[in-house]
């Protein structure tokens, strides 16, 4: 019985919390935050996989994480532009008539 890697637990917690936030939160910006938390859980999983490879950190998951971060940030940035538009319109209609 080895002691679990604290970062493995953190990765699992990030995945679980991101999932929870995505399901529970209704505010579009909060959903984007939750998605990013989930994404960070995935990235940490990949980094752990890379680190556990015998013979040094595996560069392929690292490259995957780098690609993933850029994709996540660009998609989030686009999402934020949509959130600004969405809430501006919702505001005109006095809000609250969505969902």
């Amino acid at each position, binding site marked *: 019985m080895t*002691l679990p890697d604290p*970062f493995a*637990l*953190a*990765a*699992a*917690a*990030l*995945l*679980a*919390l*991101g*999932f*929870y*936030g995505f*399901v*529970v*939160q209704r*505010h579009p*910006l*909060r959903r984007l*935050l*939750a998605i*990013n*938390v989930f994404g960070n859980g995935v*990235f940490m999983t990949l*980094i*752990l996989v*890379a*680190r*556990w*490879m015998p013979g*040094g*950190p*595996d*560069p*392929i998951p*690292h*490259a*995957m*994480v*780098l*690609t993933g*971060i*850029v994709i996540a*940030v*660009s*998609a989030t*940035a*686009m999402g*934020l*532009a949509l*959130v*600004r*538009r969405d*809430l*501006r319109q*919702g*505001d005109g209609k006095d*809000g609250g008539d969505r969902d």
Partner: protein
Amino acid sequence: MILFDGVLALLIVVLAWRCVTAGDLYLGIVVFIVMGLMLALSWARLDAPDLALAEAAIGAGLLGVLLLSTWRALPGHRRQDRDHPPARKAVRWLAGVASVAFGLVMAALLHALQPDEDAAGALALGRLTEAGVEQPVTAVLLNFRSYDTLLEMGVLLMALIGALLARTPLAPYGAATDDGTDSPLIPVLATTFTPLLLLVGAFLVWAGAYGPGGAFQGGAVLGGAGVVLVLCNRLQGAPEAGILLRLLLVLGVKVFILAGLLMLPLEGAFMAYPPGLTYPIMIAIEFCLATSIAVSLLLLFTGTHGVRVPER
């Protein structure tokens, strides 16, 4: 050190928990940014300094700035939480139970996971001499799996188009007005931090060939320089982009594709670099990529087609 790791991991979990459940949207954003700091630290601990750099520059840095600015631009940003309450209690409990189960399963799996020795990564490390650069991650991104990187540049471009089509610029076009809130500190900040960011960004791009760094980290820092200029009113959104700006935006993806297609008849495979020229080609591509990334991230921040120097 295990104690350090434990505290770090615990802090990350607490921050993530506060981030998704915070009663106040602004608090959630602040916590998200701080979580980015902690993540970068933990990735540094996990032998991934490249990724710590990327998280610091893109994940926590630029995204944090964008989140804060977006929050400020939301109409009535104080009452966002009242207008959008979370789901009903029953849903919350159900989601809670499901996510705890999901988390436990993932934790058990990750605990038991034993990657094997002949992974593709070992192969990549073994053939590093053929790749042209010393830095394994750069070799994967720009040589072994360059196709992914190329398509990723397409993702960046399309996200930018999507942000433009929403037509909600963070940096509107109107003539710059001095509304009297200009602190004397602002010119100092603009003139001090912009050159620093530019210098560090360019250095990181170049450093990517032999150490941590690379087009993405460097490009993000360069984009950060532009963001400082926008925030300090030295640059302003513009409704139209000049041909030069558009050229810079697509420079990375175009050079990448054209180089790849050129290699098709020469070397028989897309993106197969001719031996001997690998290093110069990769450095050239890296700088083109960094330029496009910097400009794309800047425009993703402003949400405008272009930027211009305001008339005073």
